[in-house]
């Protein structure tokens, strides 16, 4: 990092934080603080929804995912537009008519207070942990590649977000997210342009795509019904719709974004905007990763992109063994360069494709052997290096100033997601728990003050989770598991509320408690891969609630 990178990075972040805090200071009432005064226009809502979902990991991991596995990950987002339409059609009109501040408030009007409080508490547990991981995940990667202090980085990201989120609430989150998305888009477009310009002179963009295709990176769609493949057209359409519906429809960190809209129409257009742009945006980020892949067909790359993994193995007794693999890797890179250059100039030659694929197989085998050695040298180190590919490219190839801009992209993404999470956690705590259950006859100013305190407290909790996250193996996976354990149940409660009028409050509350117990047992005894717990929990709570309601109704009739 040069001085100019530091100036760009610090300047960008400080400008966004101070502008956000200054522009939105002094909220007078709860509506201002939690719903941003209900003034947001559709483009603000759309950008805010996109910025909330796109965390730093989106920009670090997704290009790495494309580098290793190609463009197929885009299929994961195919269900999102369907969910957007369902939310516009069903969820938004009801939330707006009831003038709710949080999604869980609706559950009280449809069922009762205990169901509302249960859903709110499940959200707080899951999102409270996730907020810590949103800070920790990019911090661990940046600290590894840049040598920055991990704890200090966690604290800096957390404190910057706390400053403007506490000060301006929802409006500050929206205002800063517009600027963060501008920085993110600008950074990614510049990175894409530079990667393509770094390719050898006689390799055009079209030829680069052909080269990527020869290595199987352009297999975008998979119409098979193979459950072993995580990303297929069908899992994207069906599973993706289901996941997006629960995330955008019932998770307060997203619901709060569109509840800040000026009217139902603005809220709906905001989600339509997201439904139109999300798939192309993810496609573009994956395409950046594919271009990084093509770049490394003509330029040397490390055997493993995680610098800590390389360092660990080189200090161990396996250093010599690893050196042999590195030499082999260098030989493979020479073969790769010649084969791809030849293919770029002589497209459609099937023999050349076969040759490239053989070299790729050799490379994958060699990288896998390297990972095995790294694991032997240090079993606790992360050998899956997909999160490190793009940042390695940025730090080693981009010109001065742009490294600072791309780091600002990554930190802006981390901050925009964290801000929405803290804002939603504070709103849910203030409205669903504090105001409704503990203190419901105070002035508006009192609740604004309470919401600010809750934002600060959740911010400190998120920083604490981020700081201890490194002590646990696979904490990110643990948070995903916790999400899967609770998400399905909460979505099931909402679907019952919206669509099954027949089911009443006691049936749904008992069903939710039983379901939560069964899902936890199912996870404990490993009944299914944890991602399927979402669907399992949702179906189970709906079936049990309908069953209990039927029994109760029959009993009443007798």
């Amino acid at each position, binding site marked *: 990092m040069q001085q100019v990178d530091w100036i760009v990075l610090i300047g960008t972040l400080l400008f966004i934080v101070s502008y956000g805090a200054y522009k939105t200071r002094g909220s007078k009432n709860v509506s201002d603080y939690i719903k941003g005064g209900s003034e947001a226009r559709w483009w603000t809502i759309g950008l805010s929804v996109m910025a909330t979902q796109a965390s730093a990991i989106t920009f670090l991991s997704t290009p790495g995912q494309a580098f290793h596995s190609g463009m197929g990950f885009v299929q994961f987002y195919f269900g999102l537009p369907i969910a957007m339409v369902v939310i516009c059609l069903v969820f938004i009109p009801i939330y707006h008519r009831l003038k709710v501040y949080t999604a869980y408030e609706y559950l009280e009007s449809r069922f009762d207070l205990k169901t509302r409080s249960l859903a709110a508490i499940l959200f707080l547990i899951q999102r409270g942990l996730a907020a810590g991981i949103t800070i920790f995940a990019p911090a661990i990667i940046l600290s590894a590649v840049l040598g920055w202090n991990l704890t200090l980085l966690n604290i800096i990201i957390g404190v910057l977000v706390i400053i403007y989120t506490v000060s301006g609430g929802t409006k500050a989150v929206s205002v800063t997210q517009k600027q963060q998305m501008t920085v993110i888009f600008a950074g990614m477009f510049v990175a894409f342009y530079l990667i393509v310009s770094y390719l050898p002179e006689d390799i055009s963009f079209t030829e680069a795509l052909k080269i990527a295709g020869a290595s199987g990176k352009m297999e975008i769609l998979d119409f098979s019904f193979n459950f072993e493949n995580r990303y297929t057209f069908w899992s994207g359409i069906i599973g993706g719709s289901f996941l997006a519906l629960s995330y955008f429809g019932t998770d307060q960190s997203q619901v709060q974004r569109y509840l800040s809209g000026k009217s139902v129409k603005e809220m*709906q257009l905001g989600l339509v905007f997201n*439904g139109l742009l999300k798939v192309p945006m993810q496609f573009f980020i994956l395409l950046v990763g594919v271009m990084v892949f093509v770049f490394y067909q003509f330029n040397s790359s490390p055997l493993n992109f995680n610098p800590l993994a390389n360092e660990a193995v080189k200090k161990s007794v396996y250093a010599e063994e690893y050196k042999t693999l590195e030499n082999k890797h260098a030989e493979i890179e020479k073969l790769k360069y010649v084969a791809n250059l030849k293919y770029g100039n002589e497209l459609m030659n099937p023999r050349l494709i076969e040759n490239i694929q053989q070299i790729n197989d050799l490379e994958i085998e060699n990288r896998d052997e390297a990972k095995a050695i790294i694991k032997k040298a240090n079993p606790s180190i992360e050998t899956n290096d997909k999160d490190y590919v793009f940042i390695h490219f940025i730090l080693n190839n981009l010109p001065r100033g742009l490294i600072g801009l791309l780091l600002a992209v990554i930190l802006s993404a981390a901050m925009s997601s964290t801000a929405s999470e803290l804002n939603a956690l504070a709103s849910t705590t203030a409205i669903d728990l504090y105001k409704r259950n503990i203190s419901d006859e105070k002035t508006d100013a009192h609740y604004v003050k309470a919401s600010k305190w809750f934002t600060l407290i959740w911010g400190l909790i998120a920083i604490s989770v981020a700081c201890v996250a490194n002590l646990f193996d696979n904490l990110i996976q643990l948070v995903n598991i916790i999400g899967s354990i609770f998400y399905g149940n909460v979505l099931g409660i909402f679907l019952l509320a919206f669509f099954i009028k027949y089911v009443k409050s006691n049936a749904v509350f008992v069903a939710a408690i039983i379901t939560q117990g069964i899902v936890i047992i199912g996870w404990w005894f490993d009944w299914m891969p944890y991602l399927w717990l979402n669907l399992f929990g949702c179906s189970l709570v709906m079936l049990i609630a309908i069953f209990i309601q039927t029994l109760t109704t029959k009993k009443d009739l007798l």
Partner: protein
Amino acid sequence: MDNQKYSWKSEYTTVLIANAFYILVFYILMEIFS
């Protein structure tokens, strides 16, 4: 469900058609470059 009718808007059709179009473009790209 709260005795209200769903009101379909042309924007929803646009979202669904646009995404079907994206998928068609992805299919064509895959056919050309794979």
